[in-house]
């Protein structure tokens, strides 16, 4: 089995299923903190998906996209946490 085929038929469907689960929690989540956790998880899934896509299409420059998502996701998490703590 080649790396490309495994990424396309193994890893990316699993990541898509996890994105669906996280999105359901994002829509349901009773409190604001639940939604923040779901967004954090969606960011991690997005990083994994970009890495898997980079391997699937053999385009390793996409690692920069994953890095940018990681940076923005951390900043978003910190901003969300401060907002939850301040604004009740």
């Amino acid at each position, binding site marked *: 089995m080649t790396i490309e085929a495994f990424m396309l038929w193994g890893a990316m469907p699993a990541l898509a299923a*996890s994105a669906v689960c996280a999105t359901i929690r994002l829509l349901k989540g009773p409190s604001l903190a*639940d939604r923040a956790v779901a967004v*954090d998880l969606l960011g991690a*899934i997005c*990083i994994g998906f970009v890495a898997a896509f980079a391997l699937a299409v053999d385009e390793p420059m996409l*690692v920069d996209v994953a890095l940018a998502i*990681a*940076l923005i996701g951390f900043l978003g998490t910190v901003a969300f946490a*401060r907002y939850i703590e301040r604004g009740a």
Partner: protein
Amino acid sequence: MELLRTALVIGLATIGAGLLLIAAVGTLRLPDLFLRMSATSKASSLGASCLLVALAVASTDVGIAVRALAGATFLLLTTPVGAHMIGRAAYLSDTPLWKGTVRDDLRGCYDPDTRTLAAHPPAKTPDA
């Protein structure tokens, strides 16, 4: 050598995608925020890091590999920090615990005015 590299990439990607799937199922099915965070914060950081390490192993360019490893390190450093900040903020804003919770070591330890954590809950004074 090429076969070894392929096997290593596929193994790392399997671990990474599986951990992310476990984190997502956990965040969907566990009963309260703090249990959900215990699933997502650990499994998601390790899962995404495993996929980035798989990308680093697969690439023949050193610059790409170093960037992917730096991304993995950044995730492993920042995800626990972000999870701690969200968990602390949620606990301070009185997010309800699961009704089956048997023990809450922090009950009464946070001062709601100064938002500082004491080692023990304040002793009740006789006139209080």
